């Protein structure tokens, strides 16, 4: 296929909040060979809708197909291809308690977060920031021997 230059795109999908809707969407991506970078889903307050945010990559033709195929699913109300958006991703990181809590606290706060839990043997830091900054954060914490890193997937809202 021509124009195979891959670009990243964040898509919000508003769907009827019914039991099988997520598998309809993930199945569509799997079945048609579309890429999913991250996928998040949560109910929209005061409605019977859910908001699904998908970060994906593909050629222009593939991205257009993704939008159109999503639209075809019966429980899909709305598909928003984000252009002017605020995009955030949350990350939780578990550190050994022996690491410098002050350093970790400073690092987390530089990325919109802080230490959210301290136990006997571990502490947990949380940040919420743009995906590219999250990447930098994960690189920066390497030297503090993180035990576990859990990324939340991106959520986005149109500006």
């Amino acid at each position, binding site marked *: 296929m021509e124009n195979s230059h891959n670009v990243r795109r964040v898509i919000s999908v508003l769907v009827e909040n019914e*039991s*099988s809707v997520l598998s309809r969407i993930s*199945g569509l991506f799997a*079945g048609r060979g579309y890429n999913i970078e991250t996928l998040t889903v949560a109910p929209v307050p005061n409605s019977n809708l859910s908001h699904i945010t998908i970060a994906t990559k593909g050629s222009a033709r593939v991205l257009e*197909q993704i939008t*159109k195929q999503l*639209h*075809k699913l*019966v429980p899909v109300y709305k598909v928003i291809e984000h252009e002017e958006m605020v995009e955030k991703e949350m990350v939780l990181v578990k550190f050994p308690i022996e690491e410098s809590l002050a350093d970790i606290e400073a690092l987390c706060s530089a990325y919109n977060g802080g230490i959210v839990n301290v136990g006997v043997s571990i502490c947990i830091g949380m940040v919420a920031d743009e995906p590219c900054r999250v990447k930098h954060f994960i690189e920066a914490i390497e030297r503090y021997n993180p035990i576990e890193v859990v990324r939340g997937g991106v959520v986005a809202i149109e500006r």
Partner: protein
Amino acid sequence: MKMNGAQMVCEALIAEGVKTVFGYPGGAIMNVYDEIYKQDGFEHILNRHEQASVHAADGYARATGEVGVAMVTSGPGFTNAVTGLATAYMDSIPMVVISGQVPLSLIGTDGFQEIDAVGISRPCTKHNYLVRELSELPRIMKEAFHIARTGRPGPVLVDIPKDITAEFGEFIYPDEVNIPSFKPTVKGNKRQIEKAVEAILKAKKPLLYIGGGVTLSDSSDLVRKLADMGQIPAVETLMARGAMGAKNPLLQGMLGMHGNYSSNMAMSETDLVISLGARFDDRVTGKLSEFAKYADVIHVDIDPANIGKLVDVDYPIVGDLSSVLEKFIEGLEGKINPDRYADWREVLERYDDLHPQSYVDSDEVIKPQWAIERIGELVGEQAIITSDVGQHQMWAAQHYPFDRPRQWINSGGLGTMGFGFPAALGAKKAFPDKTVINITGDGSILMNVQELVTAAEYKIPVINIILNNHFLGMVRQWQTFFYEERYSETDLSFQPNYKALAEACYGIGYDVTSKAEFDAAIKDAIEQDKVAFINVQVARFENVLPMVPAAGALYNMMLPKKEEE
């Protein structure tokens, strides 16, 4: 009115005007069958395999344009139905399939005959439902029919747990459907239509590219009118055969892998493709970068996802074909000059003279192409022709004189062997007064051969003409051309006595080895009014030609030898 879920299913089917249900009972769907026993609003046909039930419902839908209905039980009943669902899905056929499911409390426990039907059928249905509460059953039934027939049609599955069909509740069948997230675009964009009309007026070599959407939307009269007013040449896809009418001089023929020379050359040289309900399938386009490479493209389709999926489109129009065609005709009225395209028509005529759709006939052996042409001469316009999948299907598409839409019923997208016979049963149930012939091969007919029993029991006298070359012919053809004649597992020389097989199931059988016997068998089968197998020995190594090798350019065709060669 208070009733159980099973009765609600029956009442909903009756409310939808369903006359015939094809199906097969089993544990999880028994409650519904109990209500079927008590009602007389529709007839139930007991096929001998669930796959056949779904194909029969599909054939019924293709012949009539109405929603076909099939019913199966859970587990293996449902999995047997999957091929039928996928077949209908690929060809956009409106259908509702109702499957039984284990009781709600057993779902997820690997219960007896439990399978995740909505999970399995998600990629091969337009939509599907697992009914979780009795109160939503009437709405779901209403929505299923609405979704099946609205916009781009397709099959819908309703999976109903057994306890829900047993439970009693109030039945109020909704008058209307309200699904805010499902509103297909029907009216084409006015500005785009105007631009497309301008493009047609400016083109020098326009070509109508007619797809199955023309049949599905019943807009062949409008397509013929559009072609006629501008004297615009046309090509049809496999799914559109009959849309223009075989006698129409503007029709070049079928295009694609087994398209005729002038059709494929027309597509290769046109400067404006007017695509009407077609989807640029790989069997049509061949090598995409060479497909219609000198042309702008107008693409009219009810499904926006079809537009721009494979080729770049200059004039995208999402909408119902009939309504868009009416606007085209309005816009072109008084402005279009048929003389403008006279040179173009002449070019195509010369192409057709150069390499007409042809074959070399024989006096010693029946050529399959001759057999198809002869069927056309004997039963012609009034008959409905179904087919299975393979060489016979392509020969039928190439050589049968299809005169009207819905006359030709075949599995185009999925290419399902075993489709033809049960689909013929569905078509014959819908049109008992028409001759219904399944053109099949010695490979395909054995898939769903059990339907002989169904046809005999219900007196559905369809005629199966087996073009018997003792080969899995199409695969054999590829082995000849592309695998140095290594005929791996395609030799079907060991085969049943088809005549005896038909007779064992209370049908009638004929063994045919000559042209005289061929005529006699067809005439007798029509008179006998019984399900028939006409087993025709045809030339063994005949190939379907022209042929564009897979992923080749349309204009590079392997052509048939000419008579004098």
